[in-house]
C-alpha cells in the first residue's frame, strides 16, 4: 500500500491519482464582517505530509477542522477521497471515522479508561467486536510505548502520554489520513519530543498527514510541503526545501525569523 513514502519529498506521491484531501476556494465567515478563511485551496496526496504554519489567528486550526467538517464553511468545496464534505447527503460520521484527528488539548474522554478511549469508536462506529477492538488497542498502545497504561484513566497520565494515547485512539480507526491540530503546543517542553517522535515514525511509515504546528524542526525533517497562512489566506504552499530555503513572501520571512530565533 504505502510504497510511495519511505523518504520525504519523493516525487512519486505528488502524482498518485485522486488526492486524499482536496480543498477548493474554501471561505468562512464568523460574522458578515469577520472572515476567518479566505478562498483557501490546496490538496494532500496519499502518503504526503503537509505542515500548516502561520501566526496565531491566521486560521490554520480552522482550516484543518474544515476537513472533517468540525467547522462549517460557507464557500468552496472540500473532498476527502473524492467524497464531498460539504454535501448534506454525505454520511459525516462515516467520513470522520476515516480521518484521524489529534487535538491541541488531547481531548481524551476523562470518564473512560485508556483502553475504553481506544475502543469506544471502534465498537460503536466500526462495529468491531470486543476482542478485535481490544487487540487493536493493545497493539497501538504498545506502538506508542504505553502498554502498561491501559487500565488507567486519562487524568493519571502526563500530558505527553495523553497525547500519545490520543494518537493511538485516532489510529485505531485505521484512518486514511491524520489531522494534527497543534499537537504539542499544550505540552510542557520536556514532553514535546516524545510526541514528535511518534509523529515522525508515523510519517516515515507513509501516513498521509496534515499537521498544524510551530515545530519547524519537525517540518524540516518530515514534511513534503509547507503551507504558510496569514489572515485566513494561504500565502505560500511550497515544497519544504523551498520554504526554508527562500520563502517568497515577506510575511513568511518575518514569521520564520521570529520562530527560528528561539
Amino acid at each position: 500500500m504505502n510504497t510511495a513514502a519511505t523518504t520525504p519529498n519523493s516525487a512519486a506521491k505528488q502524482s498518485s491519482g485522486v488526492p486524499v484531501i482536496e480543498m477548493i476556494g474554501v471561505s468562512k465567515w464568523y460574522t458578515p464582517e469577520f472572515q476567518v478563511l479566505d478562498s483557501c485551496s490546496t490538496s494532500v496526496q496519499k502518503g504526503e505530509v503537509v505542515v500548516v504554519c502561520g501566526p496565531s489567528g491566521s486560521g490554520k486550526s480552522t482550516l484543518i477542522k474544515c476537513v472533517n467538517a468540525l467547522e462549517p464553511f460557507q464557500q468552496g468545496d472540500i473532498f476527502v477521497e473524492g467524497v464531498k464534505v460539504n454535501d448534506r447527503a454525505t454520511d459525516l460520521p462515516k467520513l470522520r471515522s476515516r480521518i484521524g484527528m489529534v487535538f491541541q488539548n488531547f481531548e481524551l474522554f476523562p470518564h473512560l479508561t485508556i483502553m475504553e478511549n481506544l475502543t469506544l469508536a471502534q465498537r460503536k462506529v466500526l462495529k468491531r467486536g470486543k476482542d478485535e477492538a481490544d487487540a487493536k488497542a493493545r497493539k497501538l498502545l504498545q506502538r506508542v510505548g504505553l502498554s502498561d497504561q491501559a487500565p488507567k484513566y486519562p487524568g493519571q497520565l502526563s500530558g505527553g502520554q495523553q497525547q500519545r494515547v490520543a494518537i493511538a485512539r485516532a489510529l485505531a480507526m485505521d484512518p486514511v489520513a491524520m489531522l494534527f491540530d497543534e499537537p504539542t503546543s499544550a505540552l510542557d517542553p520536556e514532553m514535546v519530543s516524545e510526541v514528535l517522535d511518534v509523529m515522525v515514525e508515523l510519517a516515515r511509515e507513509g501516513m498521509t498527514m496534515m499537521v498544524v504546528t510551530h515545530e519547524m524542526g519537525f517540518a524540516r525533517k518530515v514534511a513534503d510541503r509547507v503551507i504558510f497562512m496569514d489572515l485566513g489566506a494561504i500565502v505560500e504552499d511550497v515544497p519544504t526545501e523551498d520554504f526554508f530555503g527562500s520563502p517568497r513572501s515577506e510575511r513568511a520571512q518575518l514569521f520564520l525569523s521570529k520562530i527560528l530565533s528561539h
Partner: protein
Amino acid sequence: MFSNFDFQVIIDALPYLFLEGMVFTLKLTLLAALFGTILGTILALMRLSGVWPLPQIAGTYVNFVRSLPLLLVIFWFFFLVPFIAQKIVGSPRPIPIDPFLTALITFSLFEAAYFSEIMRAGIQSLPKGQVAAGYALGLSYPQVMRRIVLPQAFRNMLPVLLTQTIVLFQDTSLVYVLSLNDFLGIAGKIGQRDGRLTEMYLFVALVYFLISFAASQAVRRLQVHTAIIR
C-alpha cells in the same frame, strides 16, 4: 422550659409518623428526583440542540416554571390534573386522581425545570473539544451525547443534583397545604388531635434537620472524593 413537655405523644406516634408519613415523603422525594432528572436532561438537550423550535420550547418551559412559587404550582396541578385525566380518558366529568400520584406529577414537572438548569450547566462546562473529539472519531450526535457528554456532565454535576434533591426533600413538606399524609402532614394532624403541636413540630424539625444534615454531609464527602479523582 421542657418541664410540661409530653414526649409520650411522640413515642406513641412514631410508627404512624415514620411508616406512613416518612415513607410517603421519601417515596415522593426519590421518585420526583428520578423523573425530574430524566425530564430535566431531556429539556437540557432540547435547549442546547439548536434545532428550531426545541430550544425555544424548553427555554420557555424552564423559565416559566422557575418564576412561579411551588405552592402556586401545587394548587394549579391539584386543580388541573383531574381535568387533564378527564380529557385523556374521555370521561364526562373530572376524574379524581390519587393525591400521591398528583403530587408526584407536580414535583417531577416542577423539579425538571431546576434539574435541567443543572444538567445544562454540566453539559456547557465540558470543554468544547470533547464533543469535537467524539465527532472526529465518527460518533453520531446521539452517541456523542450518550457516551461522552452526558456521563461526564452527570458525574460532574452529581453533588449539585443531590443537593437539589435535598432541597426537594424539604420542599415536599409543602403538600401540607393539601392535608396529605406526608411526614409533616401526619405530625400536624396528631399534634392537632392531641393538642400537642409544640412537641410534634419540634420533633418534625429535628428529624428534617438530622436527615438533611446527614445527607448534605455525605454529599460534601462525595464532592471531595470526586474532586480528587479528577
